[in-house]
């Protein structure tokens, strides 16, 4: 069995087009969440983290890419390109698989009748084909669309395939954009906060949506990375609450099982301690409460926890990836960003939520996620 090593990564968000820019801006407590007044997206102003279109065009123009791509496809291509150039892998050869994590893909095309960009790109497999053509891939990219755990699930999926030698390298990219569809839907659920989101805070009133894209390249061969400091997958698990499709479990049981199973797997990798938890922390009343219960049930009350939703908003299919990239940066730099928006403890269990950034020697972390459909996931990485 091979280990699955992190050989490169990237984050694209309003806080930058590289992992380093994003991580540095987290440590400066900068947020991409702003008041957005755009009638095309929602009838009233709302808080959201949106990437500047001109910046996307600026970066994408430099690629001189033939063909026409959607906003989402441009982000995916830019993110994969940036990560791949830090490695010795060929994104297109038969040893390499691309996995795309997205909840809604090109949903912004639902009302457009555009001659250049065919409407069929609403199909997630069609969007994957565009990425395949761009990178000249032998393998058809695999698309995972599993609500808000998509990103974490895609990383677990990729790691398991590498460990079983199905592929040598897997490029995992997660992306979602802000659209009228998604903003209207979350508003109809009354889950969007009227101020920037406040994860785990006593006064939290809901989430802020964000758009983003992130990539992690995993490989069975650590020598394919151009970067020093190796980090590898050391366990992961997925579970279902089997309780309710739109509300998280009141007991946190489902997420607890995912964390517990991940911890059991970690022991098989001889990783016996967890130094940091990167929570889902969407700042809805129920998510944060349920997550605190799960962390507490798993006996992890004292482990430093943060949520990064205050910086990027909830980026749906990208969340699990970009938040994992940030946590990987924490392993490299031993500085944990604080939970932006968090002021006063607002969950029933006393878990160790970090308010401001702290220096701490960390060797391993767990990243969690929960989503509609009752799904939960947890993944762990360790410094080698």
């Amino acid at each position, binding site marked *: 069995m091979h280990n699955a090593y992190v050989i490169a990564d990237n984050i694209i968000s309003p806080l930058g087009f590289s992992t380093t820019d994003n991580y540095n801006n987290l440590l400066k407590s900068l947020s991409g969440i702003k008041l957005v007044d755009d009638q095309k997206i929602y009838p009233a102003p709302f808080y959201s983290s949106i990437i500047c279109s001109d910046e996307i065009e600026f970066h994408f123009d430099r690629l001189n890419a033939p063909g026409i791509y959607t906003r989402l496809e441009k982000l995916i291509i830019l993110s994969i390109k940036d990560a791949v150039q830090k490695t010795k892998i060929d994104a297109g050869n038969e040893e390499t698989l691309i996995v795309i994590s997205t909840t809604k893909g090109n949903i912004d095309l639902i009302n457009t009748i555009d001659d250049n960009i065919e409407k069929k790109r609403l199909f997630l497999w069609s969007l994957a084909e565009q990425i395949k053509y761009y990178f000249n891939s032998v393998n058809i990219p*695999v*698309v995972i*669309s*599993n609500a808000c755990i998509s990103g974490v699930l895609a990383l677990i999926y990729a790691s398991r395939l590498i460990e079983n030698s*199905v592929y040598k390298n897997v490029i995992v990219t997660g992306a979602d954009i802000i659209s009228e569809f998604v903003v209207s839907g979350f508003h*109809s659920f009354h889950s969007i906060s009227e101020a920037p989101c406040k994860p785990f805070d006593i006064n939290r009133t809901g989430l802020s949506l964000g758009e983003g894209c992130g990539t992690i390249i995993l490989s069975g061969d650590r020598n394919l990375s151009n970067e020093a400091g190796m980090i590898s997958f050391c366990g992961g698990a997925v579970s279902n609450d089997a309780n309710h*499709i739109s509300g998280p479990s009141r007991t946190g049981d489902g997420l607890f099982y995912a964390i517990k199973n991940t911890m059991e797997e970690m022991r098989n990798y001889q990783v016996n301690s967890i130094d940091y938890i990167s929570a889902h922390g969407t700042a809805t009343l129920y998510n944060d409460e349920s997550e605190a219960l799960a962390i507490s049930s798993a006996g992890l009350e004292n482990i430093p926890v943060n949520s990064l939703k205050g910086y990027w908003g909830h980026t749906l299919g990208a969340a699990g990836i970009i938040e994992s990239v940030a946590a990987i940066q924490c392993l490299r730099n031993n500085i944990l960003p604080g939970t932006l928006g968090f002021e006063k403890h607002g969950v029933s269990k006393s878990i160790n939520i970090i308010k401001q950034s702290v220096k701490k020697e960390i060797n391993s972390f767990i990243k969690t996620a929960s989503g*509609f459909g*009752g799904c939960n996931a947890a993944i762990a990485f360790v410094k080698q």
Partner: protein
Amino acid sequence: MNVNITSYCSIKKNQVYLNGKIHLAIAGEVPFKQFTNQLYKTLNMDYPKFFKLDNLCKLALLTTEFLGINENITNPERTKIGVIVSNSVSSLDTDYNFNESIKERKNYFPSPAIFVYSLPNILIGEICIRHKITGENAFFISKEFNPKIFCNYVNTLFLSQRVHGCIIGWVDLYKDNYESFIILAQHKKYSNEKNIFEENTLLKLYKGE
């Protein structure tokens, strides 16, 4: 790999095939709603929630119901049953319905009851609720039924003993076009059926050969 296919069911063109044989058919042009209501009655489901589901979830739930989950899953540990599903159109059927409710500003009434079905993995959640399954989940999108995606992943789940049984399926629906194919695969300790879980067999059973 020591995984066998315990039972399998497919539904298309108003016909139900169970373990390769025609099980039930409705003649003529029957709308989806009428067809699924009839299956619900035939199965004696007694599950009122069924009528609230979107069409994709209805199709998934009915197909799974025919597999005989309770009788056929011999190991009671439902934390170790996985549900791995794939399709081509994601939840676009419901997405268009939701979009109708927000398209015009003067008729702007986004419905949370519809929005919640605008994710394909909701059908996995519905299967889990119905059968009290709490194990591994994954939803993949591919242009057409691709047994390789299932086999590559599901085998790693069995190998590492993360599951001892798995509901694996293709459930695709857009407007009047629909097609489902769901199998129950179990470690051979729990199933001694003749079909081994591997790519070629899966493709053959899907095609009804």
